[in-house]
């Protein structure tokens, strides 16, 4: 076969590929990372490169301006090579990792992100107390098996099994060879007084650990929600079913790409997969260690970890190559991951402790959504309800006890404070309520924990934009109306609205909302709303058919539903139909950590959910552009807002 040699500038990296290979593939082979978020489908238009020399065959695309075409720009994924050629990768198309990312570029990408582990608010849980039989991932049993005699001479292992099975129905039980080797001596040294830790490994019960004496009061687990942007962990007392502490940090994988697709591309090379895997494991270990130390525990007291995350996050967590997730027909390596030993992936808890992952639905709807649905109780409703997760992927689930359909809308990280100039997570000091007094041009704020503000969380951002709109300071396209307020000024990032003067903020700087922040929010809310519209249409329902809407997400301890409707994030339904359930992924994961029954239910939910791929729904793009307006291009969809703004 004919070969062609391609040189990629500015690095002068060379690669030889068969003629007819597309430039994106060739670039990956050359170790050049080009931005691309549609997986080489020619849709996203981000993989622009310039043909300096050589002949190419390129498909026509609407993603390049006439000016760019004139300059020799082509889309790498839609262009195949022919003979020797030289390609320049312009800065905007370079996907650069940690080693090449300048400090400045990094700081820009991490605006509002990347703070060390911090306490987070646990969020509302009132609606989330579904009753499941207590049966945690790890159970501790104190045993006093009778010592063997000539009459009762079964082996030590069988003797332990017999003691465990007293009054318990456990069909399949196992113990590893490492434990068996130590068993006889341990039983005798501890005078037949031992504690067995039982782990649920799917249908099998494993005696994970045998310890001398009674340690049943030291049985803890950790529930983790591995989000694209944020990682949240709860320390749970498995015996008392109590949440002892909560911590969160930003997902350090953000360094290697903001969204799952760029991380999948980054992970295509082996050592980079390793890197992504390591940073997330490190982050989880830090969260666990921090909580363990604060509660005077040891890592040995942690016997199980339950994790929920989108499919890509779980692949990376377990160091499973995620490559095929982004390639047609978009399948995962596994949706239902087996329960494994946490140590196998490097999670530092009791060396024998287990790790279970909540099962996912598809490549783009993961276990975090299964857990969220489980926590909300959507799958128990008799009339149709909606579950909306206001996270980076913005998943939406529609259904009831008989059926469930879902989609992923790629909303972006702004609900978690990502990409927002002063955005922070829902933690102490985050502005959560904003009120604007139009006649006095004054702003009243309320922060989580009531202290001085240090940033704004998702709920505060929604509030702020709604208030700006209501007070006539923002037009419907999301542009600030400069003459409407003295607080609107031109800052270093363009037009901005002054929320807090530096002397009143915790950070000694003015806290502002920029037009770019507002634009990001509009894009996110538009994706959620239009995704929901398409999903409803797909099953022949309308918003009016919905009896209940669960709104999930780590955007605050509360969300003002009316303001969310005002900006067009949530459909215009009576407020009583909405329930804000906070971080439902972690709530559901905690349920699974505490109850085998809940885990079985999660498996059922994942098994029966149908995934709708929005990228194949022709209407989605049209609905999406229509929704990029406040509240929407078609104001008649928001009668209550129409009344308010005239």
């Amino acid at each position: 076969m004919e070969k062609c040699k391609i040189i990629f500038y500015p690095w002068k990296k060379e690669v030889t590929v068969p003629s007819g290979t597309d430039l994106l593939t060739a670039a990956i082979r050359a170790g050049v990372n080009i931005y691309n978020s549609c997986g080489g489908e020619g849709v996203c238009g981000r993989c622009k490169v310039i043909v300096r020399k050589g002949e190419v065959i390129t498909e026509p695309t609407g993603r390049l301006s006439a000016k760019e075409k004139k300059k020799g720009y082509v889309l790498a994924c839609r262009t195949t090579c022919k003979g020797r050629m030289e390609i320049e990768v312009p800065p905007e198309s370079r996907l650069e990792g940690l080693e090449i990312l300048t400090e400045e570029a990094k700081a820009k990408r991490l605006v509002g992100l990347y703070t060390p582990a911090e306490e987070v608010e646990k969020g509302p849980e009132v609606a989330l107390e579904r009753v499941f039989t207590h049966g945690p991932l790890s159970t501790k049993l104190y045993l006093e098996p009778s010592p063997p005699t000539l009459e009762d001479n079964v082996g030590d292992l069988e003797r332990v099994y017999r003691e465990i099975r007293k009054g318990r129905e456990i069909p399949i039980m196992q113990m590893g060879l490492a434990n068996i080797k130590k068993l006889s001596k341990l039983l005798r040294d501890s005078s037949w007084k031992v504690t067995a830790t039982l782990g649920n490994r799917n249908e099998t019960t494993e005696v994970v650990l045998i310890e001398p004496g009674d340690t049943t009061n030291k049985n803890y687990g950790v529930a983790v929600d591995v989000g694209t942007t944020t990682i949240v962990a709860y320390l749970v007392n498995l015996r008392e079913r109590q949440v002892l502490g909560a911590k969160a940090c930003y997902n350090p994988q953000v360094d290697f790409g903001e969204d799952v697709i760029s991380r999948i591309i980054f992970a295509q090379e082996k050592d980079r997969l390793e890197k992504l895997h390591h940073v997330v494991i490190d982050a989880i270990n830090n969260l666990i260690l921090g909580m363990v130390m604060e509660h005077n525990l040891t890592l040995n007291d942690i016997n199980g970890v339950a994790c929920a995350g989108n499919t890509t996050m779980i692949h990376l967590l377990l160091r499973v190559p995620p490559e095929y997730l982004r390639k047609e027909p978009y399948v995962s390596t596994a949706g239902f991951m087996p329960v494994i030993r946490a140590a196998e992936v490097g999670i530092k808890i009791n060396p024998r402790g287990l790790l279970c992952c909540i099962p996912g639905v598809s490549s783009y709807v993961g276990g975090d959504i299964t857990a969220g649905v489980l926590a909300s109780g959507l799958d128990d409703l008799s009339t149709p309800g909606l579950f909306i997760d206001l996270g980076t992927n913005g998943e939406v689930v529609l259904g009831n006890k008989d059926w469930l359909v879902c989609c992923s809308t790629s909303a972006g990280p702004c609900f978690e404070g990502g990409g927002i100039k002063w955005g922070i997570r829902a933690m102490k000091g985050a502005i959560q309520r904003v009120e604007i007094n139009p006649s006095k041009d004054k702003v009243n704020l309320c922060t989580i924990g009531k202290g001085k503000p240090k940033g704004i969380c998702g709920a505060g951002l929604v509030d702020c934009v709604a208030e700006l709109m209501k007070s006539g300071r923002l037009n419907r396209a999301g542009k600030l109306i400069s003459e409407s307020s003295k607080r609107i000024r031109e800052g270093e990032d363009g037009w901005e609205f002054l929320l807090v003067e530096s002397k009143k903020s915790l950070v000694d700087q003015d806290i502002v909302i920029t037009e770019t922040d507002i634009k990001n929010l509009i894009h996110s809310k538009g994706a959620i709303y239009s995704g929901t519209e398409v999903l409803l249409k797909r099953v022949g329902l309308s918003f009016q058919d919905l009896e209940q809407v669960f709104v999930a997400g780590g955007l605050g301890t509360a969300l003002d539903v009316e303001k969310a409707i005002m900006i067009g994030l949530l459909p215009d339904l009576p407020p009583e139909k909405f329930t804000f359930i906070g971080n439902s992924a972690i709530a559901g994961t905690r349920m699974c950590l505490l109850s085998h029954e809940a885990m079985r239910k999660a498996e059922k939910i994942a098994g029966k959910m149908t995934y709708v791929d929005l990228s194949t729904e022709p209407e989605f793009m049209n609905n999406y552009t229509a929704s990029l307006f406040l509240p929407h291009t078609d104001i008649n969809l928001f009668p209550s807002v129409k009344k308010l703004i005239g």
Partner: protein
Amino acid sequence: MEKATEKWASKVNQLIIGATQKEGGTRNSVIKVGGATTLPFLHFEGVIPNSPVIAMEVWDMEPPDWPAVLKEPFGDVLGDPVEWAKKCVNEYGADFLCLRLASTHPDTKNNSPEEAATTVKKVLEVVSVPLMIIGCNQAEKDTEVIPAVSEAARGENCLVGIAVEANYKTITAACQSDGHSIIAESPIDINLAKQLNILISDMSFPPEKIIMHPATGALGYGLEYTYSIMERSRLAALQGDKMMSMPMVNFVGQEVWRAKEAKASEQEVPEWGPIASRGPLWEVTTAVSYLQAGADILVMCHPKAIDSVKKVIEELMKKE
């Protein structure tokens, strides 16, 4: 057999361009567009009170990229907007002109707003047909130029533009205070078009004085995209969407005379036929397609093409 006809709930806005002495201007005639209660030329279904119109392009400088075949009919008036305008009206029978202030573009002569205003005044003096005035299509520069020329044409009820999302505020304010209508342009998207209409109307500008430009693609250069967007816009208007009920304009000449099919010489591509008729034909075909899509105003360049399209419009407007 019964004819299957559609009964629409609403109609396209009607708009008048130009002001006679009675209305406070100095024009001898006015142009009426819009008002249709049905899709283009379906006379059996509804009323089409006004015929689509053609505005003939006049530049305030010699167009740098026009091919000889397009320059030829204008001869030596190309550098002189006043003579050019006169020629269009007197020789080619234009009843509506589009004055393009290309010289204000930073990449051409970067002429000042005052110079542009002077040109507008002069053109208004020498011709008495209604006028469309557009800037140089650079959003930033247009925000300086349009207020000045709008004021210079005060009371003449011109059609002024082009307002895009980046500069609509200034242009709307200018049109508002000087009594002109406005052209609102958005990039081939029905939602973006509506959004811009809403933004302009939200500044208390009367929606009936807005004309939409959904962007124009020449034949072979994306015409079908614009076509379908225009068709959908027209359907939205007829179904009663007040923010989509504006008449539409297409800049046909501007796009066609950039296409290589209109410009390439006979030596380059002998199989394409004589250049003298190729360009005008390309312009005619593009224009006629947009008429079918619902265009109310066509901005065109070549006199031969304009003649042919006028005849087509005449035929299409016959009720029998």
